[in-house]
């Protein structure tokens, strides 16, 4: 009985097992891994990929993909940097760039939902365009030393609430909000339905175009929010920030058991996927694996995690 229930949990959350295994293994090799300090450290580190991956989960659930998230992060981060550097009050600048991120997502969404182009190619193109715009507006020069006169921006990475780092708190709050949005709203059900079969969803009188547009808006918003945290963390806005972040986010979503075909998956899985990648990055550093081997091991663990997930959900 208990065994069966146990099995049930793992069938449902195959990758939780993977995460536990990974944590145990790393802890055995170097027990310093499991200190409170380090755990908070990991959460602080994963918050950026986490936010992006949450947005990406919505997109992937509809059967789409968003390759432009890294570029949106860079562009909105740079905009934030330029605004702060130009003396715009941070209470204006921060919301502005988050809305700006939403607009960049809207642009993606319109091409996918209304013009009906393939998401992969739309966001590949906008990725290049957004990166180009970042370069143009910044002239390729990073904005530096941003947090010295911007306490709120600084709080985004350095602050803490009840002893927990603010990025971690933010990640968890966003997680809860998005989970409610996904599981308990008409919109969320629509996201799954579109991924399941768009035509069926349309004929069931769901506003499919609007929902499809919205998921890109969410993804863009999350990328911009991640951009704020990164800018805060680095105290600077880098024009080349966020390179390849899209791949880490997609990996987290897929490791978390969401199907790239859409319609099937959960946000909790993505959180686990994000943690697996975060633990892996941190753990390999803590163990002291040499840089070149880290890449190889990372790839291998991703492959194993997905195999594990597949075996358990069969």
């Amino acid at each position: 009985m208990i065994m069966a229930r146990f099995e049930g949990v793992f069938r449902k959350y195959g990758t939780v097992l993977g995460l536990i295994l990974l944590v145990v293994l790393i802890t055995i090799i170097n027990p310093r891994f499991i200190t409170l300090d380090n755990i908070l450290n990991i959460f602080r580190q994963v918050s950026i990929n986490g936010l992006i991956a949450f947005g990406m989960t919505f997109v992937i659930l509809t059967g789409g993909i968003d390759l432009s998230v890294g570029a949106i992060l860079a562009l909105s981060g740079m905009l934030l940097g330029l605004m702060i550097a130009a003396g715009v009050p941070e209470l204006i600048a921060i919301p502005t760039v988050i809305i700006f991120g939403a607009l960049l997502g809207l642009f993606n969404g319109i091409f996918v939902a209304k013009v009906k182009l393939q998401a992969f190619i739309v966001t590949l193109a906008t990725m290049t365009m957004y990166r180009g715009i970042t370069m143009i507006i910044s002239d390729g020069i990073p904005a530096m030393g941003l947090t010295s006169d911007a306490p709120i921006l600084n709080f985004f990475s350095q602050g803490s609430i009840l002893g927990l780092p603010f990025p971690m708190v933010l990640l968890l709050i966003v997680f809860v909000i998005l989970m409610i949005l996904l599981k308990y709203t008409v919109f969320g059900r629509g996201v799954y339905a579109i991924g399941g079969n768009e035509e069926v969803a349309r004929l069931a009188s769901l506003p499919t175009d609007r929902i499809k547009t919205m998921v890109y808006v969410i993804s863009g918003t999350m990328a911009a929010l991640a951009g704020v945290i990164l800018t805060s963390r680095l105290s600077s806005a880098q024009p080349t920030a966020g390179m390849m972040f899209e791949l880490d986010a997609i990996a987290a979503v897929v490791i978390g058991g969401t199907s790239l075909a859409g319609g099937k998956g959960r946000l909790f899985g993505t959180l686990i996927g994000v943690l697996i990648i975060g633990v892996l990055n941190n753990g390999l550093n803590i163990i002291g694996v040499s840089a070149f081997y880290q890449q190889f091991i990372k790839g291998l663990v991703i492959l194993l995690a997905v195999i594990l997930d597949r075996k358990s959900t069969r």
Partner: protein
Amino acid sequence: NDDEASGADGDSIALLMADLGNPFFHVLRDAVVERGEELGYEVLVYDGQNDASRQPSQVEDALQKGVSAIIINPADESSSANALKEAIDKGIPVVTVDRAVDVDGVLSYLVTDNLKGGELVGKWLEGQLPDGGKVIHMEGVMGTAPQRERGGGFLSVIDPNENSESKFEIIGTAVGDFSMAPAEAAMSDLLARHDEIDAVFAQNDTMAVGIARAIETAGRQDEGIIIIGFDGAKEAYDLIEKGEMNVTAVQDFDFIGSEAVNFVDEYLKNGTEPEDFVLVDVYMSDSK
């Protein structure tokens, strides 16, 4: 010192490299590792893979691991500032090499003067072609400090828009991303566009090698196009020896690397504080 199985909690130094994908930085890494081991340290090497956002995490991870000192080759001036501040607050000596970090309390920083290096290249070229000429500028990864500083220094001498006395003309600028294949491809395009090219400045040697190859492919190796690289990498000297490249602006990474370890060692053993700022000049060289 609580000696753990990993042994890494003894006297170890974390070396954070910005990008080991760039082979020239191996010189710096090797210098630090070699000197460190001579002095009895374990050197843990981290690779930032050319991504500024990785380094703060690596600093945090190194602190978690409990290293005694940090030598960092920062990806830029500010990204790892917050993380390094934490280290400094914990009393861990931090030495930055090749680039400064905008944070108080750094033990020392040893830096190649990239801006001056760029100017030096410009001046060297003026010396070669007193009557000016047509110049191509191959830039590194846009937005990175070496790209801005080397390019800025170079243009301040060569670009007529910035230096009214310059007799040169910049006929083409392209981005080679500090790597060979894009530099080679962009140079091929520029060769197709321009019949007359007098000199090419590549912001690092890897790109210079690609440029030399593109010139060879286009069959224009006999036009005497001057190729200038930056770094002082082995491959540059090889080409210079074969007469396919002219000169490179050398950064003395051997010196910077071993000196950084010396500073850390002195501080840990005797509490000696080194000079907090060591500026290492670039020099032009056409032989190892």
